[in-house]
């Protein structure tokens, strides 16, 4: 049920309503990268996309509400993206941030002049995505929201994206939601794994 769109809508609604009152945890960036990566894989994303999402950790941590939106994007239902392209433009219909975001950056870096992400919820996540891409590929990028669900990404001749602040403590509901997905990657223990999995038997003393 957690993957259900109604569930995540309710989660976000509660998250936004309680803004500023959540318990928070001071996490390191590396810790959040590891958790985001595991959660993405637990959600069924390819490991390469999990890596790309984890690389956004620092930017996401700059805005506690943004972290909540990321949870929304991660839990959101997936539809197979419909992709069209010509020499200059890539268009992705039914775009989902966690899959289509890295594809959009790839296209811009490969020479596309613009990328249209259609029907994409959680479009505010484009900001940390593009800032991360700017830092990674040493370029300037911009985006324009054309309606509630569509975003146009393009190159820019100057820096136009906002500067994100320093990482902030992470809201506990965000950590819990990520851990819930991360659990999907763990293998339950068995007698044989307890005996042999770590290679040391059940104890080791000197």
């Amino acid at each position, binding site marked *: 049920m957690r993957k259900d769109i109604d569930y995540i809508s309710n989660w976000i609604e509660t998250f936004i309503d309680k803004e500023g009152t959540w318990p928070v945890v001071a996490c*390191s960036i590396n810790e959040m990268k590891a958790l985001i990566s595991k959660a993405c894989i637990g959600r069924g994303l390819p*490991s390469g996309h999990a890596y790309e999402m984890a690389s956004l950790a620092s930017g996401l941590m700059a805005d506690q509400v943004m972290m909540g939106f990321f949870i929304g994007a991660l839990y959101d239902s997936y539809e197979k993206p419909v992709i069209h392209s010509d020499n200059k433009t890539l268009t992705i219909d039914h775009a989902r941030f966690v*899959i289509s975001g890295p594809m959009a950056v790839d296209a811009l870096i490969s020479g596309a002049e613009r990328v249209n992400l259609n029907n994409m919820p959680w479009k505010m996540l484009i900001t940390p995505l593009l800032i991360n891409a700017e830092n990674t590929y040493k370029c300037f990028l911009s985006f324009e929201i054309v309606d509630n669900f569509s975003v146009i990404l393009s190159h820019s001749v100057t820096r136009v994206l906002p500067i994100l602040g320093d990482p902030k403590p992470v809201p506990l509901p965000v950590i819990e939601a990520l851990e819930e997905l991360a659990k999907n990657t763990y293998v339950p223990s068995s007698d044989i794994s307890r005996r042999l*999995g770590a290679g040391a038997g059940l*104890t080791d003393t000197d």
Partner: protein
Amino acid sequence: MNKIFRNEVPLREPRAVMKLDRMGSMFPTRMSFMRTLLRQLSEKRALINRAVWEIDEDGFGHAVYTINIDDRMYSLVAFTNYLNPEDRTDRVIAEAWDSSYVLYDGVPEIGDIVRLNETVPRQEVGRFTINELVLSRANKSLRLFSHVVEALKKGNQPDKKMVKDIGYLMRTTAVYGNGKFGIADRNKLIDRDILSGPFMAEMLTVWLIRGFTHDLVEHLGGSKLDRNIKSYLGVGNATGLGMAPFLVSHPELLSNWMMARETGLTRVRALQSLTQRQLLRITQLADRVVIHLDEWQVTDEQYQRRIKSLRIEWKKVYENLEFLVAEDQPIHSLVKFSEQFSLDCQELVVAFVLEPFGDLIDGLTCCMTSGEPMPLNPKMSIKELEVLIEERFGWAIEFDFNLRSETAQFWYVSEEKLEPRLGLRYEEQGGELESPLDIARQVKLLRSDLTDNFANVGEFLRKFPAHRSVLRRIQIMDSYPYSEIQDNMISENCRPIDMLRCKLAYFGAAKFDPKSDRWVRVTLAQGAPLFNELDGRDDWWLPVFAA
């Protein structure tokens, strides 16, 4: 791979160096991290001060050691407590320890120590702050700790054979850095000169722990340890599978470690002749190797056989040393001569020939760190990618993954302890959740999906997003030739201990003592300078018992 200039010897090929069995034969070198750290601390004349010693007559309490490095203070905060015998295990899954430690960025106030006293002994269960750089814990050696204390109480020194056989008073069971449990990210150390190097903060922690263990037994025993005995007492470490995936998940870093060492090797192999002083040094070190190998005893029968063979092979190297070093390019001749012997002997010779030539190679250690991971290049053409796979990943293509033997194992993370494990795919549950350490198989799967229908890899990945991770690794290999372990990590033949030994050798560990094919005991900082010996001496490669 590299252009050969006059007298220059090419780098050893990655296809030879990056095999698991060779990696599992490596020895510490003067470029190992503990060695590099102490050499640099010595150059800076770093001073260690025991600022707090609140340890009671039973050895329980806390202590603080401070060290000044480049005008910055760091502190080891150590806690010791009673440990119920049934809670004692050196596995990472333990929940209580004899002692616990944190490397603190600065000098802790009393309030910090109160806070740390609440959290540090709890280790993984505690939460930490960016003021903490490294978190660790250690258990006493049941064989040696009490013996040393009792001997000192009687005004005696401990039994030399026991010291020689065991070599440490405590064993660390985990040394956590880089943001674990809320401690500082490694990026915090990026501009900290000495501590910016790989695992330098962790090595500093271990070395300070070693000094604390010396002080603790002297406190409990009421008299001083003999200097040579103290020098031989390092810090034990019990390492399991948790360390193994690191080498796969940090390809650029692994390549830089290997490249620095291999570059050092080519430099010394290119030497046209040796000075009398260098010849004398080589002879002295060759003698030391004989003693070290003799002192290296393990209980694992197969490993002990390897050590015995190595002793025999080293004798042959030793007997021919005088003639080999008299030839043109003497080090090159020596390395070539060793190629008739086992990988253990070949890698021992590599570490041996690096040792006398610090002036040629020590500067390379600054190249052993890595910055941000290399990003995917989505502009690369499919043709370029195909060429790259053919040139760099032929080893991966050769495996037949239709054979059960080539997919017999799988890596996973255990739900119970959140630790990496290795399972038997056809006997255990959980194969569908395996961690992506199957690089060779991933390369082969990607290659099977490649066609000319895509303008570049960005377009290819829109169709095949599952290949994104391995595609980036393939691109990394173009710039970092030693970035991949060129073996099948899920084969029935994959022995994780080979990865552990490689990494531990880079740390500077010696006396590898395997307890299974995925669990090894080692000793760190054995023979290293004591707190009051950071005076420029840098001669403790392959420690031997001198008492």
